[in-house]
């Protein structure tokens, strides 16, 4: 193993926890997320020379993950149909103004966003990327990221603040 490869691999290992977290947010499933991380790591190792000096390893990996998710993992996702209304009903009705929002309720709500919105939420709110970086990861204009985030947040507020809102969102899907 060359010193460059060792350095590259060490960096990969250091970002693994965050790749898993992002993967969890976009795939909504633990095993799918880990599969996605593994595929992305393997692809990254094959395309190591494409990582430009000065580029963030993390952003680059998010991009590889997002692409792998779209063209490979999503189609064979273990996760089945999104929640039955009864199940989701157990978690909604928590006002966002409550001091502590139930993490499970929040994840359930995010699970019900559409793919594009969920990825935007994963990059910006879960992983804390600036809009500009998120736009680069997704290969879209910054305004697109902004509007996806705005719509995602509206839906999340609706899902989390009242069951009626949740039903409306569900009906719209």
């Amino acid at each position, binding site marked *: 193993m060359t010193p460059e490869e060792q350095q590259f*691999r060490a960096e990969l290992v250091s970002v693994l926890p965050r790749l*898993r977290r992002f993967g969890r947010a976009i795939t909504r499933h633990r095993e799918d997320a880990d599969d996605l991380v593994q595929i992305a790591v393997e692809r990254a190792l094959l395309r190591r020379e494409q990582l430009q000096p000065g580029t963030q390893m993390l952003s680059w990996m998010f991009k590889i993950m997002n692409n792998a998710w779209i063209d490979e993992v999503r189609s064979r996702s273990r996760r089945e149909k999104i929640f039955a209304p009864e199940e989701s009903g157990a978690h909604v009705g928590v006002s966002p103004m409550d001091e502590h929002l139930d993490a499970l309720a*929040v994840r359930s709500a995010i699970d019900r966003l559409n793919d594009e919105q969920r990825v935007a939420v994963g990059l910006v709110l879960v992983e804390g990327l600036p809009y500009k970086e998120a736009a680069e990861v997704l290969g879209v204009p910054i305004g697109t990221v902004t509007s996806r985030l705005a719509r995602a947040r509206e839906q999340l507020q609706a899902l989390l603040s009242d069951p009626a809102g949740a039903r409306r969102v569900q009906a719209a899907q």
Partner: protein
Amino acid sequence: MTYSDEVLMKYVDRELDAETTASIDAAVVRNADLAVRVERQRKLAHAVHAAYEPVLEEPMPRRLLDAAAGTPPAAATARAPRRWTWFEWSAIAASVAVGVVIGVAFIADGRRGATDTGDIVADRGQLFARGTLARALTDQLASTQALGDSVRVGVTFVSKRGEYCRTFTLERGSAAGLACGSGGDWRVELVTRATPKSGEYRMASGELPVAVQQAMDAQIQGNSLDAAAEQAARQRGWRR
């Protein structure tokens, strides 16, 4: 001045320019409704972030670590390239003559020894030395083996896992590998074609295939065994 939800979202995400940020900072103090809307945005952003925070603390699956690190983490630490001693060079000198056919028998159902016909057999996802190869690994000493032996043992060392490991070369240097184990049960860690670059005797100059050398560098603990230590290890039946 009224602010849209989108602007308040960008405010909470610190995506606004300094001037707009300052104006909202000031407006929030005067306008209770606005303060509630900002707080709502902030709570949501915080809750979303917090909902996935525990993932960072989960134990990392082994398969992901292996995929990223390339080797089991214990062996992944960087090592400086080793210098080879004259003893090691002579030990892995060319083996000319008598061929041993390396047969790989795959035991589909995992019953060890069911078809023990080759020198290397696959069993439960691992390769094990059998036959001529196993005997050579157990019996031969690098310092005393004959030039004509069909298997030539090279370097013997103790691995980071605490097992004995030995490099070997097969018939005229056509293949080389590394086997590790304890008590004379040799697990083949690696076997690779040793294609001579220029002429049949290339291996004579002591060119251990790069893959074998790398595997050895990754696994070796301390120095390789000298002739006396190798002999002592054989006498103990390769147990430590």
